[in-house]
């Protein structure tokens, strides 16, 4: 009973924590730490909420979530007889777990497929540019610069971006994209995008995804500024923003501008770094969250 209650409390805490965290202001001062905390919150929320139901369900076995589930799967009869409540918890817990796993897997497969298609098309229609070795160029007048992540990541820019940006600005953009590649930001995004598809009505999940999207951009900006002029990166951002001749289809107007300006501001006037104690505190919290839920799955309190 205690395990189930603790897991339920942990799941609630993660939910509430995420809700508060969506409006936290320090995140732009330490994007990487914030990303880590988001990941920890996500993982432990998933494990705690499903674990709480399952811990309650396998209570008749009296041997913890994981061992109880193994006993259930192998068909051993529990010490105490089943009652309706435990059966309901078992069905709900297993369903939730299955849905979470299935959603993650589907999102992974879909992403890989979309990338494969994108890569195949790129091989057929993009071309090299002698000025930018290793970068694929697309013949299109709109400005775009992006990266197709994977084992062999490809950085792509459009002809529109080439004519929009100066040489230094393009170098800054490429440094930014190289940072995405190096830090595998696509893997950070994947579970959040998947979760959003699984729970499209949840405001917290939507906000969390938007936050993480912005945070990885800031993290990439931070890495890029080591190799290029932050000012050029900022002007490149603004030029991209104003070149958006295409209308935004999903009514996200406003957020885009706000995020862009936030990135520009912190490039030009970096805020003081987050105090070390706070940063370590956030890291310690993340580690605790990520380790405590598996612990509660294995051991019975």
């Amino acid at each position, binding site marked *: 009973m205690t395990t189930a209650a603790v897991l339920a409390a942990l799941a609630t805490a993660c939910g509430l924590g995420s809700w508060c965290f969506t409006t936290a202001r320090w995140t732009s001062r330490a994007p990487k730490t914030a990303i880590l905390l988001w990941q920890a919150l996500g993982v432990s929320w998933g494990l705690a909420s499903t674990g709480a139901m399952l811990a309650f369900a396998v209570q008749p076995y009296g041997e913890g979530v994981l061992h109880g589930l193994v006993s259930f799967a192998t068909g051993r009869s529990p010490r105490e007889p089943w009652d309706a409540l435990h059966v309901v918890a078992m069905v709900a817990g297993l369903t939730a777990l299955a849905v979470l796993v299935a959603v993650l897997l589907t999102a992974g497969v879909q992403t890989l497929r*979309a990338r494969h298609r994108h890569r195949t098309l790129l091989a057929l229609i993009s071309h090299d540019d002698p000025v930018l070795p290793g970068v694929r160029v697309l013949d299109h007048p709109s400005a775009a610069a*992006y990266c197709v992540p994977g084992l062999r990541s490809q950085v792509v820019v*459009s002809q529109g971006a080439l004519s929009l940006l100066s040489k230094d600005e393009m170098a800054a953009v490429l440094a930014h994209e190289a940072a995405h590649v190096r830090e595998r930001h696509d893997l950070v995004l994947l579970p959040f995008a998947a979760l959003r598809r699984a729970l499209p009505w949840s405001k917290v999940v939507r906000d969390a*995804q938007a936050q993480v999207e912005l945070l990885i951009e800031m993290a990439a900006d931070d890495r890029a500024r080591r190799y290029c002029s932050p000012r050029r990166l900022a002007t490149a951002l603004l030029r991209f923003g104003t070149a958006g001749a295409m209308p935004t289809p999903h009514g996200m107007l406003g957020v885009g501008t706000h995020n862009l300006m936030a990135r520009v501001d912190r490039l030009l006037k970096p805020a003081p770094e987050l105090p070390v104690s706070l940063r370590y505190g956030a890291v310690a919290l993340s580690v605790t969250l990520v380790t405590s839920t598996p612990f509660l799955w294995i051991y019975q309190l």
Partner: protein
Amino acid sequence: MKGLGELERSIMDILWAQSAALTAREVGRLIADRDLAPTTVMTVLDRLTRKGFLHRTRDGRAWRYAPAASRDAYVAELMLEALDMTGDRSAALTRFAQGVSGPEAEILRRALTELEDE
């Protein structure tokens, strides 16, 4: 000898440049690499058809190949994904920045002018 990817590319380019569907023999004649074995051309045409980039129709004893979509259509497809305009915010690509429009863009334009004046 060019790589297979390079060959697929040149063959698509040839077919995109033509208005009519071509047979493997005609493609082979138009290709720059004269030493290419006709079977290689056939193989690549077959691969591209299986991937869905070419349509083929029977013409007597030979097949005639034509692109399934125009080059511009494929460029547009990639750009829609690149600009995140497909409607689903997947994690397939990581993008540098998104454009904004209307009065929003005016705010950015002003900030840009200020930066350039300094």
